[in-house]
């Protein structure tokens, strides 16, 4: 780590960059105030400016991070809390891939990975990530090279192969935190097993950063993660209002800081502001979708490349997504991140994430969510890429319809590879489902 690199990082990422972004944010806020609402959607959230600023700053910081501070690439559901106190800049390849998806850059990246021999059946996040690595093109400018790779298998087994490929390509150490799948509940040895691995991760992270991890700092970070998750959960709770004060598809974007910045003071500040704004909107009766007629749940990842058309379609039917298993998965952990024994809390938290739990648990959670959010129906996105999330959705749909009277529809698409999204067919199916709630709105 050269002095020169550190100085440049400090200047760009901590001083000049943020100053420029702050000016930009002020301009954007002024513009937002003048911007008329686009019916049927409610006025845009002021927090959208903060969100953009936060994400831009995060990616800007990344551009000059390598060589200036330790860098880790990490899966979304990995115990990032042990890295933050060691000064790591943390890259989330999944988030980066989602951005590529939303900016319509995923296809080219996937194709680059396929040319290198990776199968098209592989998750499009993995292909997008590997593809941007090979082609050296990304909409975020530049992603810093890692000193350490951290992969936790609590979301899928794909990540194990994906990160192994990264370790091979980048020649850096990889730490895998293996989480046994929870059939029913947690068994005592599950937690011990995961805990030991997280302790091992801490040692590897210390080695790569050449610094010791202070327990007090870890506890502090965990406390911040816990607060972030709790605040995010409160934001999502606002969806229970009728009408819901924000548009549910947006919540997929607002989830970003929860994933990539949990454990940092910035994330806490951001969600405090978002929550205040949502509460204020709810008080004033502002609706995410005016004349809200249909309240829906969403299961699985979003279709990043089709957010716009999906919004338009839902808007035409006066339909809002009032809750989603995907966004809520990130608030559930608030209760588990208890202070006291940080390694134990981390093991509990990362063992019990949504995708590491059996279908019976998922069915129960979904039914409870439908009740709490007074949902009229469920949209199940059968995501070609994400096998663990999509497995069992037809059964979940049946169960919810028969036992709880909440109908659902399964739409087949992909979270980021547009070649696996047949929009016309998807839209047709969605419309047919929505016609059942709001006849004649299909215009």
């Amino acid at each position, binding site marked *: 780590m050269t002095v020169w690199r550190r100085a440049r990082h400090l200047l760009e990422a901590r001083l000049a960059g943020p100053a420029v972004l702050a000016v930009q944010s002020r301009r954007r806020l002024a513009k937002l105030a003048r911007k008329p609402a686009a019916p049927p959607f409610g006025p845009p959230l002021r927090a959208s400016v903060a969100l953009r600023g936060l994400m831009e700053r995060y990616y800007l910081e990344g551009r000059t991070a390598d060589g200036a501070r330790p860098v880790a690439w990490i899966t979304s559901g990995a115990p990032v809390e042990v890295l933050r106190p060691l000064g790591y800049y943390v890259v989330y390849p999944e988030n980066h891939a989602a951005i590529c998806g939303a900016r319509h850059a995923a296809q080219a990246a996937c194709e680059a990975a396929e040319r290198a021999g990776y199968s098209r059946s592989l998750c499009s996040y993995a292909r997008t990530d590997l593809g941007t690595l090979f082609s050296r093109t990304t909409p975020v400018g530049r992603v810093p090279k890692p000193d350490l790779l951290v992969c936790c298998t609590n979301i899928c087994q794909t990540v194990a192969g994906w990160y192994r490929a990264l370790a091979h390509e980048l020649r850096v150490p990889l730490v895998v935190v293996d989480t046994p799948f929870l059939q029913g509940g947690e068994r005592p040895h599950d937690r011990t097993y995961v805990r030991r691995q997280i302790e091992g991760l801490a040692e590897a992270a210390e080695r790569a950063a050449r610094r010791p991890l202070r327990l007090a700092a870890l506890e502090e970070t965990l406390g911040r993660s816990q607060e972030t998750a709790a605040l995010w959960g409160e934001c999502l709770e606002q969806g229970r209002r009728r009408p819901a004060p924000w548009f549910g598809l947006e919540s997929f974007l607002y989830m970003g800081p929860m994933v990539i910045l949990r454990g940092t003071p910035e994330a806490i500040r951001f969600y405090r502001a978002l929550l205040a704004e949502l509460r204020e909107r709810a008080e004033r009766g502002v609706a995410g979708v005016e004349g809200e007629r249909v309240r829906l749940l969403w299961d699985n990842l979003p279709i990043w490349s089709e957010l716009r058309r999906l919004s338009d379609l839902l808007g035409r039917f006066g339909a809002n997504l009032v809750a989603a298993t995907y966004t809520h998965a990130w608030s559930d952990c608030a209760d588990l991140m208890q202070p006291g024994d940080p390694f134990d809390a981390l093991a509990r938290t990362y063992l019990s994430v949504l995708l590491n739990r059996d279908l019976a648990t998922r069915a129960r959670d979904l039914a409870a969510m439908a009740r709490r959010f007074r949902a009229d129906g469920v949209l199940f996105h059968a995501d070609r890429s994400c096998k663990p999330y999509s497995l069992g959705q037809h059964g979940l749909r049946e169960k919810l*319809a028969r036992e709880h009277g909440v*109908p659902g529809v399964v739409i*087949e698409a992909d979270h980021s590879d547009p070649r696996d999204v*047949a929009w*016309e*067919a*998807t839209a*047709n*199916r969605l*419309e*047919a489902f929505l*016609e*059942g709630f709001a*006849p*004649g709105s*299909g*215009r």
Partner: protein
Amino acid sequence: MTDGRRVGIDAGSTTWKAVVIEGDGRVVASRVEAAEPRVEAQTRRVLDELLGPAAGPRPPLGATGYGRRRVPDATTRITEIAAHAGGAARVVPDARFVLDVGGQDAKAIRLGPGGRAVEFAMNDRCAAGTGRFLENALARLHLDWADLERTVGAAARPARISSTCAVFAETEIVGLLADGVPVSEVVRGLVEALAERLAALLAQVRPDGPITATGGVARNRALLEAIAARVGWPVRAAPEPQLVGALGAAWAAGR
């Protein structure tokens, strides 16, 4: 212009259909044509022919089918699910299950009160198990729809065709013919394979009564019988099955 008159258009992927109905639901004019690439132009031309050149207000127009958004001046647009459900309920008042086999997709619908679709299943990702599958396969054998019934009747047994993929089935056909399997048995095999697929689609809406078949493919009795044998309920073609979607759209326009 008679009071209560309305028009329904079903702009499908292979055929374009229109009906004009009176207030009491009587069909006074109809048209079935091959779908042209320009839905707008086709609609304008046929409406001029059916209703006379546009002058003064036109009756309400309901549109359905994949091209529904491109039907100009539609007062109502509904999906084929709603259209076939509503249309079938009009022509077969006690219908409770509908099977529509279109050119590029197939749908099974459970009807609720008032001809509303309360549950549906559809295949929309590929042309396996749709009209296009049979059409492709027949073309390979130099046969057309009109020959189907007779050819199936002549078969002693069905040839075994395992794929309903419109592309792979062709390969299988070539292989079967090369092995000397008679054309009639191959065709019957195709019909059975399609019936298998459609019966599985129907099973998703759990039929417990007779099924009304709509769409052009419903005119094929051999196919309907093969499906009925699998689901255990009679499958009957709706009157003028090809027009059911357009009819449903016309009724929706008058709502």
